[in-house]
């Protein structure tokens, strides 16, 4: 996976240990890193005639969701920074790093199965990080 180079915590303790800013940074970076490959993938599979239609729509839907999620996380991050929950030392770097990743060669050279596999993993990562982050920042809601 093109995001394999990222240094991400691989266990619960590690995730809980790293500072929130970093966690947020990682999340944003990951989300950004997938933006381009997703659109590339969508273009790619549109030409595949044998895929059923709902796969295509599903893929588009997923891309949109990722984009929205990224936007949302950005907003939340801004809010948190404004509220002082997290510092804004890493502000803005996520997107650039992510973009660089997404443009990398590996991103473009992935096969379809690798793509799906890597995306599945990274989305799981993002989900877990977000959940941990949520419970760290707002522990009262169902945590």
């Amino acid at each position, binding site marked *: 996976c093109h995001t*394999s180079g990222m240094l*991400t915590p*691989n*266990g*619960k*303790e590690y*995730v*809980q240990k790293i500072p929130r800013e970093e966690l947020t940074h990682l999340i944003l970076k990951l989300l950004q890193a997938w933006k381009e490959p997703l659109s590339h993938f969508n273009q790619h599979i549109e030409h595949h005639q044998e895929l059923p239609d709902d796969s295509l729509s599903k893929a588009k839907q997923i891309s949109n969701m990722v984009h929205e999620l990224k936007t949302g996380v950005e907003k939340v991050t801004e809010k948190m920074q404004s509220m002082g929950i997290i510092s804004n030392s890493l502000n803005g770097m996520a997107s650039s790093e992510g973009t660089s990743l997404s443009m990398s060669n590996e991103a473009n050279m992935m096969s379809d199965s690798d793509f799906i596999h890597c995306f599945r*993993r990274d989305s*799981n*990562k993002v*989900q*877990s990080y977000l*959940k*941990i982050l*949520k*419970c*760290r920042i707002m522990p009262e809601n*169902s*945590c």
Partner: protein
Amino acid sequence: MKQRFISSAQIILQLALTTVSLTGQSYPGKPQIIRCRSLEKETFSCWWKPGSDGGLPNNYTLFYSKDSEEKVYECPDYLTSGPNSCYFDKNHTNPWTTYIITVMATNEIGSNSSDPQHVDVTSIVQPDAPVNLSLETNTSANMSYLWAKWSPPPLADASTNSHVYHYELRLKPEEKEEWETVSVGMQTHYEVTSPQAGAKYVVQVRCILDLGEWSEWSLERHIQIPKERLPPEKPTIIKCRSPEKETFTCWWKPAPDGGLSTSHTLLYSKEGEEKVYECPDYKTAGPNSCYFDKKHTSFWTIYNITVRASNEMGSNVSDPHYVDVTYIVQPDPPVNISLELKKSIKRKPYLVLTWSPPPLADVRSGWLTLEYELRLKPEEGEEWETIFVGQQTQCKMFSLNPGKRYIVQIHCKPDHHGLWSEWSPEMYIEIPTDFRVKDMVVWIIVGVLSSLVCLIMSWIMILKGYRMMAFILPPVPGPKIKGIDTHLLETGKSEELLSALGCHGFPPTSDCEELLIEYLEVEDSEDQQLMPSHDTPSKNTKIILKETDSDSGRGSCDSPSLLPVKSRESRALPSTLQTRDVRAKEKKGGKGSWETQCTASEQKTLPCNSESAKSCTWLAAQLPSSQPAMFAYHSTVEAFKITLNTTNVSSSPVLVGNEENQQSLYPIAETVYDDIEKKSEMENSKADQTTVQVRQNQRNDKPPFLNPKLMDYVEVHKVRQDEEPTLLLKHKESSGKTKKCTVPGTSKEYTKVSTVVDHHILVLLPDQRTQHPPVSQESVAETSQNPQQSQAEKNTSYSTTTPSNSRRDTSGSDYMDPSSFMPSFK
């Protein structure tokens, strides 16, 4: 000589027998040669079996002879071969001759010898079995061998060992049934080429000489062939699971054991790394497992796991198993399942089920998020109903039936890729049914009440059945001619007719006659006014009598003739004016039976009962006490129930004669009248046609009274001319007395009843004639007839439905024709 010999023999026999009989001993039984055998063709032995010994010690001797000779030899050696045997050594054995051998048993008494046995040495050769059988196995280079070794059978004479034996070997695995026989030849060893590895074998050998028989099989020998020594087979990895997304465990299935001890090792490597690690913990999770603790667990990396089995001969590696821990999470079942019964507003209870996530799962930090699912079924049911609950740890169940038992189970799963946990242990739910009892009580009350209501209804139905029926289905009135009974008319019996028409009670009874007489008498004496004419009394009486006699239709008591009488006596009868007594009972429908009590002056009540057919009641007008002139004729012409057949003739209204002049009477009369009026009104309510409003005396009206006249038969009082003209009874003053109606002007004489309306209203026709002073004579004359005629006419008039106005019968005197009011009514 012979004889002597014989006799001596006999004696000896007898002696012997006696001896036997005395002592129980006898000569021995016959021995039997069992067998003879030669081991090596140079010697042989014979064995015999003794017979019965006869109670005494026996001696056995063996005799033999060769077939070519006759000489009998005795056994050379009794000992070598054992008891009851004979051993022929080399010197005595000649293989080419046949021996004839017998054994004789001797004891004190006698002897006995066996059957001779022909023995050919060559044919009885049988060696002993080989001995010293030994076995060995050898395994080399994955091949196993089985060696067998033995020795020839031993001989007594070891020197001569030039015998050549042929051997045979047989073997089989222990558990099998069939032997595998191998001819070995003259060797005393043998090698089994490829025995079964790991099997246990049984081996035996036997031998044979060049002639003769095979020896017995030697003793068995057992040997275990060692198993094959192979490297182990491939183990397989069964599964890897993580219960809480922090650690995980892998299980494998060990390789089949080749008899050698096998050990397993688990090796893994992570994605992107080359280094191979060994399982950190073989023990925690049990045999054939490997437990990865937190430190060794990494997420979002793929593990490459293999298991190696190794033994002395080698090792074998399983197929690699790739696993990412994120996707193998299978939590434990939820715990702390508790039930709570709550009652909602509508008093229907519902169940709240709560539980906790499994203890290991870290839900609080958000690392692992679980989703829950519930399933429940009635205890006796078969199918589970599955409810997905989501991430909440409670569930409200509304759809349970009270009184039933349910089984409920919960399980959970991570919210992302993962596996469902096991179902929690079964939980039993039972909903109490208390509130059902209330429902039952309500239903019981409802049932009781409704049954009561039904009972009451049915009771009512029974009691008032007829009325109800009539109410619901009013009887259809048949065509009815008033006053005439068609039947009777047809039959033509006038008497019956008249009787039908008339009132039963009316024909004067003896009582009435007496009364009449009495009345008459009284009248004569005192009242003059009343008495229209003194000379009439007799007539009257006569008339009356006549009338009464003939007048069947008239109420006897109330016959007009009576009335004056009564009236005369009315003085004495103030109280007797018992119009009140007049009770008009009217019954609608059915039989209108009138029961009026005619109160005689003497308070005699003359009940006039009429059947349904007719009732005519004549209310006796109570004569005013003071004023004789006034006849209070409260005669009520009842509607003759002309409608003979119809039972629904309602009683006619009481036409109460107005009594004038008598104030005293009035009130009473009025009251009566009022009552009657009411009643008549009631009855008249339906009348549309000329209903005679028999309204006698309305208040204080003074109906023209016909007092002065001796009304012979004044049935009907004059009807007044009011708004509602009333019917006035008028006596037809038959006699010349102008018993006219003293009613000024207004009075008319109604001589005839024109109609009966509504069965109870008498419509009278005014008698033109009587406007004028009646011809008393005529009237008188007619009176006699009149009663009948009147009755008849009455009847006719009654029967005529249409009021015939100007119809005037001859007997109009009897009938008053209310012509005055006719128009109005018309």
